[in-house]
């Protein structure tokens, strides 16, 4: 939705006064797209508003504990009485600490970026500068195709192929032979966990990041690459010293967008993460959980909470995720626009 308003802005800039006079249909188009942009803003705002309103009892009940505790327990539904804090009540023994999920979300997201950013940059650079022109349409089609695969398909593949392989082959071998390295030793686990999540998320964000960074590099054209080559640089030097610094902000923005995507990804992660509750990962094979995944996996049990506080706490989780990704998106798009202006594109 946010991307729509960007495109609208560009159209508006591209329409010259003369063109406006020439055709009324242009004006109608401008008005319609303007309305659509406004509507998308309004929808985001309303969604956030209702989400917060729904989560309000949980926000009051949980207080700061929501961010400081790692214990998620909906309480005893057969227990007697209720537990009341700040005027809102939950089942006895309830505790809604989100730290495990917040930590898991940021950890899987960050590790995914560590894996995906260098790979994506290399693929994008070679797509722009070294892959023969004949093969580019094929390579580009492959990238678009990978970006378009529904996440549940990646998740299913992870579940039936990747997870068993990690659980039976990779993790036992690594923990046995490389166990002395921090975070590689200890329990090998079932294969569901951090490593599988990061692998699947990387598969999903790499095509997105390749496509966006490739477009930034294409917009900047060949000229800096050629300028560097004509000064007697190697193509590696031209890419790392001339091209990358000139597209730095565009790359940062696309990395942030991909980061936001990784944080919010639900199905694929849910299918391979091991759904950790009340425990932090011990090594790279340990089960983890993310905010998005836990909302889905805990929904059913939350519905058994007669006080409704478990559902409202899940909504509070959703708010947290919403705010995190919104901030990341806004920052990314701000950087991108600024970069366009500074580097003289699209203006």
């Amino acid at each position, binding site marked *: 939705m946010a991307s729509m308003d960007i495109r609208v802005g560009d159209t508006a800039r591209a329409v010259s006064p003369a063109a406006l006079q020439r055709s009324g249909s242009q004006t109608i188009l401008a008005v319609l797209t303007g309305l659509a942009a406004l509507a998308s803003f309004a929808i985001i705002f309303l969604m956030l508003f209702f989400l917060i309103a729904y989560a309000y009892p949980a926000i009051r009940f949980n207080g700061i504990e929501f961010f400081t505790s790692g214990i998620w327990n909906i309480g005893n539904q057969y227990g007697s009485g209720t537990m009341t804090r700040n005027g809102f009540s939950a089942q006895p023994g309830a505790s809604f600490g989100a730290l495990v999920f917040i930590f898991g979300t940021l950890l899987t997201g960050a590790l995914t970026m560590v894996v995906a950013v260098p790979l994506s940059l290399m693929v994008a650079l070679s797509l722009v500068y070294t892959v023969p022109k*004949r093969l580019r349409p094929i390579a580009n089609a492959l990238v678009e195709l990978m970006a378009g695969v529904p996440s549940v398909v990646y998740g299913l593949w992870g579940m039936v192929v990747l997870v068993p392989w990690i659980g039976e082959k990779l993790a036992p071998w690594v923990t046995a032979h490389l166990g002395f390295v921090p975070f590689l030793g200890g329990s090998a686990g079932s294969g569901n966990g951090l490593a599988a999540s990061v692998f699947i998320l990387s598969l999903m964000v790499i095509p997105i990041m390749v496509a966006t960074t490739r477009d930034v590099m294409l917009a900047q054209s060949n000229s800096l690459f050629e*300028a560097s*080559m*004509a000064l*007697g*640089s190697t193509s590696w*030097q031209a890419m790392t010293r*001339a091209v990358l610094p000139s597209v730095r902000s565009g790359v940062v923005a696309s990395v942030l967008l991909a980061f936001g995507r990784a944080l919010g990804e639900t199905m694929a992660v849910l299918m391979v993460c091991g759904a950790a509750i009340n425990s932090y990962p011990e090594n790279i094979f340990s089960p983890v959980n993310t905010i998005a995944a836990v909302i889905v996996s805990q929904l059913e049990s939350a519905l058994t909470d007669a006080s409704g506080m478990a559902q409202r706490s899940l909504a509070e989780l959703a708010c947290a995720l919403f705010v995190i990704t919104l901030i990341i998106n806004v920052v990314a798009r701000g950087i991108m626009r600024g970069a366009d202006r500074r*580097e003289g594109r699209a203006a």
Partner: protein
Amino acid sequence: MIVTNPDQTSASTAATKLEARDLNIYYGKFHAIKNANLSVPQNCVMALIGPSGCGKSTFIRALNRMHDLTPDARVEGSVLLDGENIYAGGIDPVTIRHRIGMVFQRPNPFPKTIFENVVYGPKIHGERNKKKLLEICEKSLRGAALWDEVKDRLDRSALDLSGGQQQRLCIARCLAVDPEVILMDEPASALDPIATSKVEDLIDELKKEYTVVIVTHSMQQAARISDFTTFFLMGELIETGTTSSIFTKPKDKRTEDYITGRYG
């Protein structure tokens, strides 16, 4: 259809710096340069003229192996630098481009400071000494007649310079790697007349130390700045000779038609 010009024999007292032999260039199946032969004497300015699309850029980019960067381009034949074929096996194109610099049609400074732009090449080639780099920077900017205009703001972005200054910066950047030959592909076509005349004066200076090959879309410019002129038409090298002979007594009818303005 290559006419050898007797004038060249008289000029061949200067050693041949760069020579294209039986050069054929293809983009996929398209034959863009057809069997071109040309020699460029040392410390001279050679202008390449011809209507748009005739292959001037294609030809000049073959002279420092820039076509290696175009995946669809294929070059056949040889280009001799001091008698040595730059397309021979075992020759590293990177060292060739170190010796044969290039300035492009559109000024393309890096989005870095003026200083970093000029010393980009020396740094790439391993020069780390700050004092040495400052010396190179000043010498190159003086060589490109830009020093006086930018000496107080070397740490400002190159993108803040005017188009003409940017192009002279690109020339300075090229001089900083101390090449033997400088190739220029319509270096003034994106510039206003005043900036153009500055660049033209500069080219006249450059030939004292370097050998210059320049593509130009303007015959007046070729006449003003070059010692030799070569005329291309539809991928063929039609005629080459001293600039005065090409403009006053062309041997080929097609050259004459072009000079007298019968093609674009």
